């Protein structure tokens, strides 16, 4: 661009005036430029976002999974009431069959000199007069589609086996159990080859153990697919042995299962939700890096005057939220949750005529710079005193540990300590001018994200339906409410009583 030299007076005047024109850009412009130039510096916000998401997922997982597991366990527990309808028995039955197949039957088959093909049905003669063994190993039974199996017991099979009443009685019982277990073990539909059908057709016991017609009438398949509701349990000896084992093992496994259930229930109880409210007395501790006689911790709940000249009184605070305890070990819990907290304190001020005052800051290089403000709040050292409320509303996510000091059936004593990441939802922060004579307010100085620590010894009382959590809590915000470029540091501190309730 070459500047023209033929500019008229009008254009020159216009240019001169236009060139004098300046505007102050808003802060978002530099932030946008900075973020574009230094994208890596976004990591704090990204980290916070990731931590938040992980926390949510963890909370969601802890909240949902145990309930689903609990529902399954409840169903399991109900079914365990009856031996004949017990899932444990089903498992025992299946395991017994497996055991028979892998041990006894193998031995028997081997003894008979016949070849066993585990992928097909086969029969073997154990006792030449009445015992037949039929076995089938369906390695895919877990994935087989569960379909209704006709109840062998309902077919009045005993009428067809008049010469084997005991066996039929046993058969009825076991087949009943087995039918109930079909959804559990997935052995719902077994195909049999035509050769085997022919073979079985010659065998009265096996033939009556299979229900060709019922399945063929169901129309599920053109081929004949008899259901082997009881196919593995065909000899009196085996059935007697197995039934005994079955009933015996059922008791053991029932106990085992109930123990497992208890453990799972215990696991469920490892996650505890506590809803709490914490009324508190709030104040602040000031530290001024520019003041040589740095602020001594002369905190009191009454009116105090800090090293930087602020005179203030404690105010009211309130925290509400939910706390999630996750059992790590017998003595330790990890805790997290969500907290909404309000803290406030009162600055003693007085009204003055609007006047200019200055705040001193330090830039990133440690160099001083100042800003001028107009205010009508004095430092409270003259008449017309009034209070200015400095408050802060924050949402935070704590993360900490709880130690179980002592406990019995009714009472538990714990020590909880946590660190929390908070975001400021709303705040009102007046700060004292550098000459200590006025209070000014500049929201841009407020730090949007902060960190604090909690210390909360607590006692848990177990009631009839709920547990009460009670204990003092101290909350200290260890990052200043103001950004680092402001030389004076303010740390909020709350003393409260935490009252919580949980199931």
């Amino acid at each position, binding site marked *: *661009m*070459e*500047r*023209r030299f033929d*500019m*008229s*007076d*009008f*254009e020159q*005047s*216009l*240019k001169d*005036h*236009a*060139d*004098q*024109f*300046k*505007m*102050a*850009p*808003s802060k*978002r*412009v*530099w932030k*946008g*430029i*900075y973020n*574009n*130039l*230094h994208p890596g510096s976004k990591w704090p916000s990204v980290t916070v976002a990731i931590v938040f998401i992980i926390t949510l997922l963890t909370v969601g997982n802890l909240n949902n999974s145990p309930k689903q597991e609990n529902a399954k366990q409840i169903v399991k527990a109900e079914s365990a009431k009856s031996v004949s309808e017990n899932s444990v028995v089903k498992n025992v039955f299946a395991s017994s069959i497996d055991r028979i197949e892998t041990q006894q039957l193998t031995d028997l088959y081997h003894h008979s000199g016949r070849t066993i093909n585990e992928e097909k049905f086969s029969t073997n003669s154990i006792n030449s007069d009445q015992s037949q063994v039929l076995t089938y190993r369906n390695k895919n039974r877990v994935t087989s589609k569960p379909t209704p199996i006709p109840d062998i017991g309902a077919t009045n099979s005993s009428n067809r086996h008049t010469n084997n009443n005991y066996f039929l009685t046993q058969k009825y019982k076991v087949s009943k159990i087995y039918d109930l277990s079909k959804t559990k073990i997935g052995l719902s539909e077994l195909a049999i080859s035509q050769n085997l059908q022919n073979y079985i057709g010659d065998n009265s016991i096996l033939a009556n153990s299979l229900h060709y017609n019922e399945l063929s009438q169901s129309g599920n398949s053109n081929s004949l697919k008899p259901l082997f509701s009881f196919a593995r349990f065909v000899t009196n000896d085996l059935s007697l042995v197995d039934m005994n084992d079955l009933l015996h093992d059922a008791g053991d496994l029932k106990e085992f299962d109930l123990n497992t259930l208890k453990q799972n229930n215990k696991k469920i109880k490892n996650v505890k939700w506590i809803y709490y409210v914490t009324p508190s007395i709030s104040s602040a501790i000031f530290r001024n890096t520019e003041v040589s006689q740095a602020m001594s911790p002369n905190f009191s709940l009454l009116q105090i005057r800090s090293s930087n000249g602020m005179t203030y009184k404690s105010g009211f605070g309130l925290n509400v939220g939910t706390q999630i305890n996750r059992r790590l070990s017998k003595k330790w819990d990890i805790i997290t949750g969500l907290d909404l907290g309000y803290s406030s304190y009162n600055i003693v001020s007085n009204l003055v005529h609007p006047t200019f005052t200055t705040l001193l800051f330090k830039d*990133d*290089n440690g160099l001083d710079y100042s800003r001028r403000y107009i205010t009508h709040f004095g430092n409270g050292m003259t008449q017309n005193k009034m209070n200015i409320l400095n408050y802060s509303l924050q949402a935070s996510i704590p993360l900490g540990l709880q130690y179980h000091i002592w406990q019995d059936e009714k009472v538990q004593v714990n020590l909880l300590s946590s660190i929390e990441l908070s975001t400021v939802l709303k705040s009102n922060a007046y700060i004292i001018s550098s000459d200590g004579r006025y209070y000014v307010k500049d929201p841009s100085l407020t730090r949007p994200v902060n960190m604090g620590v909690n210390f909360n010894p607590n006692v848990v009382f177990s009631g009839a339906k709920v547990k009460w959590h009670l204990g003092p809590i101290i909350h200290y915000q260890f990052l200043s409410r103001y950004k680092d470029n402001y030389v004076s540091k303010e740390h909020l501190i709350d003393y409260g009583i935490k009252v919580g309730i949980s199931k």
Partner: protein
Amino acid sequence: MTDEQILQGCLDNLSTAQETLYNRFSPRMLGVCYRYARNKEDAEDMLQEGFIKVYAQIHQYRGVGALEGWIRKIMVHTCINVLKKNKKFSDSVDLIHASSIHISDTNIPSMMQAKQVVECIRLLPLGYKTVLNLYAIEGFSHKEISTILEIEESTSRSQYTRAKALLEEILIKKRILQKPRGKMRIASAFNFL
């Protein structure tokens, strides 16, 4: 920090140098962007985009001429590109339509002189004020303007002539200029400021 130190810092991608450069030139550059934009928000967007280009292309600055002039050139081109991207020219260069624009007294707030002039320029239709900005203030020739805005050179001339007339009318109406007596040139009237 001197310009050389700032330049070296920006070349080294130091945020302090970049911020110093920004703090030094952004108010004036925002004034430039504001003359082209519809409002301050748009102007700030242009400023942001322009400064990102400045930092990205700062290695191309050879030290010939003032740094401010180099930055200003980038800003102007950024503004024009933004306007062209938004296709504002196509529906705003109609001279007949522009001449019928009514400007009320209340549209111009009470401001300092420089801002008064800038606000009056901003009251012009987009095509007018763009040509006026480029020709009268930035010093482009009509040929350059025709290339930049992708319009005819004659169109640029006629738009500038009419823009100047309309601006004069606005300035007089807002009592920023005295109404010229007889054949008094507008430049003489401007000396009133």
